[in-house]
């Protein structure tokens, strides 16, 4: 077991390294030169441009840059922003908690709401509850987030005055953004768990359970749901990725701090070290979460535990 986890961790490390490599290469290949953003090309002399390129180190061959970047990365040095020479890592560390809080709250919300809706929907298949639950679920994945976010904001903040419209201090400011993002997650979960419930309900052992005289409640909640949730657990990893991505938009809408906004801005400014840093960082988070999911999966599902 420990060995299996170690193995996973090792391959995860490779994936992280790979993703940073990939980003490096993509950003390298994309048109545009970070120097453009720093210097006025129409007035600068070629020497000035060359010297700036040299100072930034972008004049070296790709492999040298790569080696340099990874060498520093291994020492925990994420480099400095090209634009304001702020060190990248502290910047990420400063902004990550807000994004994490958002992602975690939305994931929690989507799991709770999603599972609830899915169960209602599956248990009352083809009844009106099913219809409502499915539509709610589908709406979650059918609405552009910035729109649903603004709608929620107008309703709950401006109109009803229940919750703050923006900011990233305190749980109250978390509610609306998390609800907006959670709606998406809930949509995915409803679909997944409902399908998986319907599949489980067709399994033979459900007939056995009924033939034992168990109440429908036990059959559905103690047995069917638990089985149906197992595949849904794998979704949590995916969900966290989804939430991190959603943060890019949501953080802007609700004026929250977070790495989503930082990376969006950095991409637009071709601030490579910042983009790199955030992506490597989020890749690490993604991989960690998935590793955790895999490990917990084997605890939840006895079949997997045996195979491991």
């Amino acid at each position: 077991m420990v060995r299996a986890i170690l193995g996973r961790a090792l391959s995860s490390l490779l994936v992280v390294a790979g993703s940073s490599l990939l980003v490096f290469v993509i950003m390298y290949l994309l048109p545009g030169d970070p120097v453009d953003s720093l210097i006025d090309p129409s007035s600068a002399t070629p020497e000035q441009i060359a010297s700036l390129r040299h100072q930034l180190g972008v004049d070296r061959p790709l492999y040298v840059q790569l080696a340099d970047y990874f060498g520093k990365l291994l020492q925990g040095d994420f480099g400095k922003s090209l634009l304001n020479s702020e060190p990248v890592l502290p910047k990420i560390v400063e902004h990550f908690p807000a994004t994490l809080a958002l992602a975690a709250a939305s994931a929690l919300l989507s799991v709770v709401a999603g599972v609830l809706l899915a169960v209602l929907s599956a248990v009352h298949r083809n009844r009106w509850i099913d219809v409502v639950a499915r539509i709610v679920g589908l709406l979650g994945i059918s609405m552009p987030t910035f729109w649903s976010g603004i709608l929620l904001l107008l309703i709950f903040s401006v109109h009803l005055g229940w919750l703050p419209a923006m900011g990233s201090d305190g749980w109250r400011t978390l509610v609306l953004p998390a609800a907006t993002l959670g709606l998406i997650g809930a949509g995915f979960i409803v679909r997944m768990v409902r399908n998986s419930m319907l599949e489980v309900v067709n399994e033979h052992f459900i007939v056995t359970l009924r033939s034992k005289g168990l109440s429908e409640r036990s059959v559905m909640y103690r047995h069917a749901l638990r089985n149906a949730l197992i595949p849904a657990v794998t979704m949590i990893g995916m969900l966290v990725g989804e939430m991190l991505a959603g943060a890019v938009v949501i953080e802007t809408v609700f004026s929250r701090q977070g790495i989503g906004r930082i990376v969006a801005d950095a991409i637009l400014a071709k601030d490579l070290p910042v983009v790199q840093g955030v992506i490597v960082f989020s890749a690490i988070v993604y991989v960690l979460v998935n590793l955790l999911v895999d490990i917990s999966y084997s605890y939840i599902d006895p079949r997997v535990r045996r195979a491991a």
Partner: protein
Amino acid sequence: MRRRNSYSGAATLLLAVALVLSACAGGGNNGSGGNNNGASGGEAEASSAAPSAGQASAETPVQGGELTYALATSPDTLDPGRSGLAVASRVYRTIFDNLVVKDENNEIKPWLATEWTVSDDGLSYTFKLRQDVKFQDDTPFNAEAVKFTFDRILDPSTAAGNSAAALSPYTSSEIIDDYTIKLNLASPSRAFLVNLTQSTLAIVSPTAAKKYGDQFGKNPVGTGPFRFVKWEENAEIAVERNPDYHWGPETVSNQGPAYLDKITFKIVPEEATRIGSVQSKQVLAAETVPPQNIVALKSDPNFQLLQADTGGLPYTLFINQNKEPWNELKARQALQYGVDVGTIVKTLYLGTYQQAWSALTPGIFGYDASLENSVQPDAAKAGQLLDELGWTVGADGIREKDGKKLTLHYVDGSPNREKRNDIAVIVQQQLKKIGIQVDVEITKDVLTKVFKNDDYDIYGNSQVNVDPNALYQFYHTAAPGALGNLAHVSDPQLDQWLEQGAVEKDEAKRAEIYKNVQQFIKDNVVILPIYVFPYTVAASNSVKGLAFDSVGYPQFGGVYIQK
């Protein structure tokens, strides 16, 4: 690593970068003085002739409390010497003071300087300083601090922004005694004293500036009514009352310590969220209210809407004369007749913005009011002018000449600040009616597109400024590497007027010169002026005493919150 020689143009670039990177405020931006183009998020500052639309209060101010104030964009840095953004000024104005201040009547009044004299040749200014002032870090304010502040702007390693342009043609300081200083200029300038009122030339604490170096923008220390507390990137900036303050200028209602304990500036770029946070009372005030909300908020008894006109160069569309056929006057005139600016302004700004008629805004010295209503849209005339040039209407309604379609490449920046993208949309439709196909390109990378590649037929820009001398940069034949002249206009007569205007001592003559300039610009259709931007603040009724200075920046010292 970042050193700039050419002060005239580079700031533009940096402003663009700063906006693009609005999330990454801080001390990184290099550059020096100059203009503000549309790519940036706020107005570059300068002084303004327009009087503030402040709010006089008869009631007794309430001591204490916190004002929350939503900003539309994030400041780039709080270092006056380096900032390029108006939004930054609005924040650091609370922390810093200037030597002098300009009142509603364009008169220069004392602030940190008590009196001043100008040498006869106009090449040096001598200031007497207040002796009872100290910085928030307890550094004493004296001639040394003034010298340090201005020399620091000249120092290339500071990577000064707009401040360098404002300071020009300053060369050096002489400390006469602890509280007397003489500033030397390279050439006489009619604008220098006025420019000293600009927030970019605020006096900084030498101790702190040396200590923090390029991180001073994140740890600003001045003599202002508030002192810096914290800056959480993308979230908020907090300042608290400076209890020792008692040197406010006569232009503000409260010269003593501020009434407020604290101001928290929240950074809320999304319009709906910003307005929503005022409406939900999460913040007490929010700046830059979109026109449609202005209309709605004005009728809401729970809120007040404060408005201050900004002055300088209005938002104008520059027609690139390097491009055919726009190098021909008739073609530009066709645009002038074809674009119905009145409708545009009415449609988009719902009566909250003024239509611009000249290269200058109304409040500015030398503004030529006779130009107002001098241009009326006339599609038929436009068509006729184009016909004369040989552009005939083709089968698809677009004019052609020699098999070439008449197209106009309209470049605008993103995001859609002040609905400028929407202007493009309307212009596109209006010009389609006279047979011009407008290709609108919205780009984040204005820098490359417009300034580097010169790849546009029309590009819009504006600048908040005080003195008509601002026209120089935009309409004088461009020096190599200078970037302001977006229209690429080059006319000896125009150049001469602009040079004269910079030094002319006679007010009346000077006004006449600038009227000629404006007339020329209009007659030659160098630009299409569109609108004058008003700075707007929506606030709860409990916010009292919020006034604006001559530039349209809010003054927080007199603000209090009524319980």
